């Protein structure tokens, strides 16, 4: 199973502040995804990223969100101006070449105060 790490593991921020969540895939992956899970709810898709561009995004992924893979390794999710309702666990997932299964990282717990 491919290893995926995420940093930070926990982030507390004030409403209106910018946060950057990072995903560091260990192996050479092809597709990258961000999902979130609000406490007590199911995992929800945010965005998928392939060949250095967004391939699909959900309604949740509005103008406050952006993703990039600036150095060909780290895959980041930026929330420009956080809202209280952005508080959730954010998971990065990766899809390796010639595979079908998305593997998830351990998540970043974001708390917006």
């Amino acid at each position, binding site marked *: *199973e491919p290893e995926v790490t995420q940093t930070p593991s926990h982030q507390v921020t004030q409403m209106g502040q910018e946060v950057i969540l990072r995903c560091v895939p260990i192996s050479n992956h092809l*597709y990258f*995804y961000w*999902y979130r*899970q609000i*406490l*007590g*709810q*199911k*995992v*929800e*898709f945010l965005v*998928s990223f*392939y060949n250095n561009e967004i391939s*699909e995004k*959900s309604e949740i992924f509005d103008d406050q969100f952006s993703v990039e893979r600036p150095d060909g390794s780290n895959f980041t999710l930026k929330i420009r101006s956080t809202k209280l309702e952005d508080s959730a*666990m954010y*998971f990065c*997932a990766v*899809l390796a070449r010639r*595979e*079908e*299964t*998305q*593997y*998830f*990282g*351990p*998540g970043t*717990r974001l708390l917006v105060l």
Partner: protein
Amino acid sequence: GESVGLHLPTLSVQEGDNSIINCAYSNSASDYFIWYKQESGKGPQFIIDIRSNMDKRQGQRVTVLLNKTVKHLSLQIAATQPGDSAVYFCAENSAGGYNKLIFGAGTRLAVHP
């Protein structure tokens, strides 16, 4: 750790018994299905998958059954162990895994000694 799924349906079983977790999926076009296990404070962990051209697939102590007629998926865990205690999510996908995963609501499995 995080308490995920405070209001999830719960299946309570005795150690050594078999467990069956059910899931209804939504999209008739989905052709790939995955079961994930999520322990408290961690990301979803891949358990087993099945493609729509199959109706049964077995792994180590786990079996997934797919009934496309009624859009139903089940996960059977044989000889359930305390380490199996977690929240279990089914997820559906199309186009061979590259698209977004759509997660079900989840079921909490509680294994009692």
